[in-house]
């Protein structure tokens, strides 16, 4: 027999004005199962809470109903109070007679009647409340960071410096990401590699950072605090322990005509290569797709067509027969920092995008994109930092920069603004003018979006000090005209068509998520938007979290981001991870689903509807211990307690703690005959 205490709050005049709290107390006092019912001016005040605690102790209450404001307001308060009086907090419920009653009704009689009904329903519910224990989940205090660009490096360093192990996975041969390709960075024009390289080395040498380059995330199991990640180590063909990075193999490699990814196709590399001199680790990778030996093997040649690198390697580090290997890492949190790619606007468009035939990219060698320009401008670039155009190596005297190529273009490209182009184009004009003072830098733009500390000043400087010619209008066509590149544009401010005979054209192409982001998102069960960017849990209040607990986002995988933002996000994810790791157990609200394995028919409707993948399949064994079927099991670590599985269970074998069928029906029944 339950002994329930009902406490009616006046909330000063807020409730008492329209609800006769005394009457409510009287009505509830006679309600079966209610031991005490009393009203008080401010139930949430300290004396109010004391009153409740005392009542609990005096009457050995089994449940408490506080008729006051919204549970969103004070449920925690009263549950804490009850706990202090030795009562399980989860048998305390609130009846909302303020927001849902006194504040929206003026007829005292009706309001009072409604308040009584509401109180009764909650009392009936509480009769069926069971004491619950807060769920405690063990936390593996190691983190996985996916992506070794500036965001990933920063996140890894911050977490590692915070005292926890980090596994850093990079798909390329070296960490560094796009930032390592950049020449100088806005708005300070400091050399990108000068500020990045030390961080790369630091990450490489950090005692608590375990680095997997030339590796990809294959599989992710588990849940917050307890992820188990399988990593594919792509066959490198070079023994990382033996190799001393002397570079002899590269010098010897006969196939030297492969387009360099690092130089965005502007230079050539060998089949066995380190992408760039400052690569971390400084250990080459054998590109089996282009390697003569492996081409031969694919053709099925009897003997190997080449083997030069193996012959040259004094350390005997080269191994042609190594295959991809898999390692499994146990981690408690995951930071996704996979970064971006540029929209390749050439004619061939895999994903049903239209591309820009009118811009001649891919056909006219002197029409390049932003990253290619970075390489041209970079001291470590193919032209050693001298302005040389790709076609004939001549110094371009007129360079046209076109912004918003593929951005803000719902018809042929992306509807969103790529955000970084305005700034890096301003930077490009400066870099160009500094290298070719007598040259012309012409920029076609729609708007200059330079919101950020020192950003507008920077872009104005490009115009006012360095003499970049900004023309407001989009470009209609770009085509080769002898050794010039013709650009048909329009100046919407002086209302005239503008035709420029350029020596080189730089297209600020749209920022897009990395290819394969969708597959990764599915492995992580993280949602992504129509453009493929990963979704944050809340656009304002949870910008670096995802809907999957324990997985966080840093940098351009979430939206176009510049370096400062990426680094800031990385720091934020590190803070979240360190917070999660601050205790070796994780506390969770116990209102989660629970399966009755005796009645579960194993239809797994629940598995289909669960948004969190919290449902697992458990074997059922017969007497001899042979598996004879499966039943559902809810992982309390993953379950968020929405109860969708409960509603779809045909055999009513799932219950949601705190909202069981018993409780809800009790409420419904309580409303009978009001």
């Amino acid at each position, binding site marked *: 027999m339950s002994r329930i205490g009902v406490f009616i709050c006046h909330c000063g005049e807020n409730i008492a004005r329209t609800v006769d709290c005394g009457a409510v107390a009287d009505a509830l006092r006679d309600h079966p199962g209610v031991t005490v019912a009393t009203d008080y001016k401010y139930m949430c005040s300290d004396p109010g809470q004391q009153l409740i605690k005392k009542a609990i102790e005096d009457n050995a209450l089994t449940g408490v109903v506080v008729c006051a404001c919204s549970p969103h307001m004070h449920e925690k308060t009263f549950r804490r109070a009850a706990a202090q009086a030795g009562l399980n907090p989860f048998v305390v419920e609130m009846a909302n007679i303020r927001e849902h009653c006194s504040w929206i009704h003026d007829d005292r009689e009706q309001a009072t009647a409604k308040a009584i009904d509401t109180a009764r329903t909650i009392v009936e519910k509480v009769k069926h409340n069971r004491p619950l224990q807060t769920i405690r989940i063990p936390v593996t205090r190691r983190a996985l960071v996916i992506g070794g660009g500036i965001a990933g490096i920063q996140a890894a360093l911050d977490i590692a410096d915070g005292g926890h192990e980090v596994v850093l996975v990079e798909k390329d041969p070296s960490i560094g990401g796009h930032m390592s390709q950049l020449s100088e960075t806005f708005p300070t024009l400091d050399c990108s590699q000068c500020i990045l390289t030390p961080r790369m080395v630091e990450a490489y040498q950090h005692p608590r950072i375990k680095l997997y380059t030339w590796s990809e995330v294959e599989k992710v199991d588990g849940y917050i605090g307890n992820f188990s990640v399988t990593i594919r180590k792509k066959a490198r063909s070079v023994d990382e322990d033996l190799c001393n990075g002397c570079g002899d193999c590269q010098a010897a490699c006969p196939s030297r005509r492969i387009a360099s990814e690092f130089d965005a196709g502007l230079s050539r590399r060998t089949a066995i290569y380190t992408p760039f001199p400052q690569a971390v680790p400084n250990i080459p990778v054998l590109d089996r797709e282009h390697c003569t030996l492996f081409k031969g093997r694919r053709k099925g040649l009897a003997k190997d067509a080449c083997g030069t690198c193996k012959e040259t390697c004094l350390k005997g580090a080269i191994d042609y027969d190594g295959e991809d290997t898999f390692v499994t890492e146990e981690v408690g949190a995951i930071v996704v920092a996979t970064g971006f790619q540029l929209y390749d606007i050439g004619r061939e468009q895999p994903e049903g995008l239209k591309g820009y035939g009118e811009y001649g990219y891919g056909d006219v060698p002197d029409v390049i994109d932003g990253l290619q320009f970075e390489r041209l401008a970079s001291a470590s670039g193919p032209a050693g930092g001298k302005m040389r155009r790709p076609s004939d190596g001549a110094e371009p005297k007129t360079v046209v920069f076109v912004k918003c190529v593929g951005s803000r*273009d*719902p*018809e042929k490209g992306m509807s969103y603004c790529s955000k970084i182009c305005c700034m890096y184009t301003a930077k490009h004009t400066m870099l160009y003018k500094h290298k070719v003072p007598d040259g012309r830098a012409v920029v076609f733009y729609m708007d200059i979006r330079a919101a950020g500390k020192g950003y507008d000043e920077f872009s104005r400087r490009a115009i006012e000090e360095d003499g970049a010619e900004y023309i407001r209008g989009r470009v*209609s*066509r770009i085509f080769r005209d002898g050794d010039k590149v013709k650009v048909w544009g329009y100046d919407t401010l002086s209302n005239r*068509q503008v035709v420029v005979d350029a020596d080189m054209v730089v297209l600020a192409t749209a920022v897009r998520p990395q290819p394969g982001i969708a597959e990764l998102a599915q492995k992580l069960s993280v949602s992504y938007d129509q453009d493929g960017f990963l979704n944050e849990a809340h656009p304002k209040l949870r910008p670096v979290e995802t809907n999957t607990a324990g997985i966080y986002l840093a940098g351009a995988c979430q939206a176009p981001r510049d370096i400062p933002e990426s680094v800031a996000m990385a720091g934020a994810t590190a803070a979240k991870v360190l917070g999660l790791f601050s205790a070796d157990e994780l506390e969770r609200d116990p209102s989660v689903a629970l399966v009755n394995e005796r009645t579960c028919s194993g239809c797994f409707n629940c598995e289909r509807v669960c948004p969190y993948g919290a449902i697992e399949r458990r074997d059922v064994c017969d007497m001899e211990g042979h598996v004879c079927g499966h039943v559902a099991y809810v992982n309390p670590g993953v379950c968020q307690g929405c109860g969708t599985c409960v509603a779809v269970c045909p055999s009513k074998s799932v219950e949601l703690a705190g909202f069981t069928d018993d409780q809800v029906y009790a409420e419904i029944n309580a409303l009978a005959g009001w």
Partner: protein
Amino acid sequence: MNVALIGDAGGGRRSVRSTDGATTEGNVPRVEEGATTLIDHRPAMPEPLAAYVRRTANINVARCYQCGKCSAGCPMGPEMALPPHDIMRLTLADDRARLFAGDSLWLCLTCETCSARCPKDVDPARVIDALRELAAAEGAGHAPRNVRAFHEAFLEQIRATGRLSEVGLILQYKLRSGALLQDVAVAPAMLRRGKLPLRPQHIAGAGEVKHIMAVCERERAHSAGAAPTAGASARRDER
């Protein structure tokens, strides 16, 4: 106030019932047979151009963000006082005066380059067509004499014979444009090459064509170049 005017075959005076229930009397042009099917959407106040374009062509001109890509590629751009992006802007600004003042609308070749490259799918070519219809219907358009003459001559030819006799076209055009001496030198050359059949072809369906043109004309005249059917492209659902 959007007024629906339900016509009876007789024409003359008839009651104008507005959507807000008010009833007024108004004079409307006489309509011939078949006109009862027509419903006049002519507003009491001149309808804002953007609204007109949206209603007739189902294009939301507000989508235009004035990037100028249309004008950049427009073959007639250099000759237009108002290149395409200005036309979009003035349509949005509802500036009939400036829009209909010059001959820009009539210099559009409908080569569709602008529409093909518009990042916002505003389809300037179609907007300009719609505006020309309106201008013509309101007598507001100042088509250059030559251009107007050409179009008139062209349609005149079809009305007359159901097909276009190029000789007839040229003659008609010369009379209308007054450009009597233009290209006279080439006629003999044309003839020599057998490119000018002097006798216009007559077809059985000539009458039928004439009738089709009559119906369309009436419909336009009767609805300010804004027949409900006029070109709402289902493809271009508002995004």
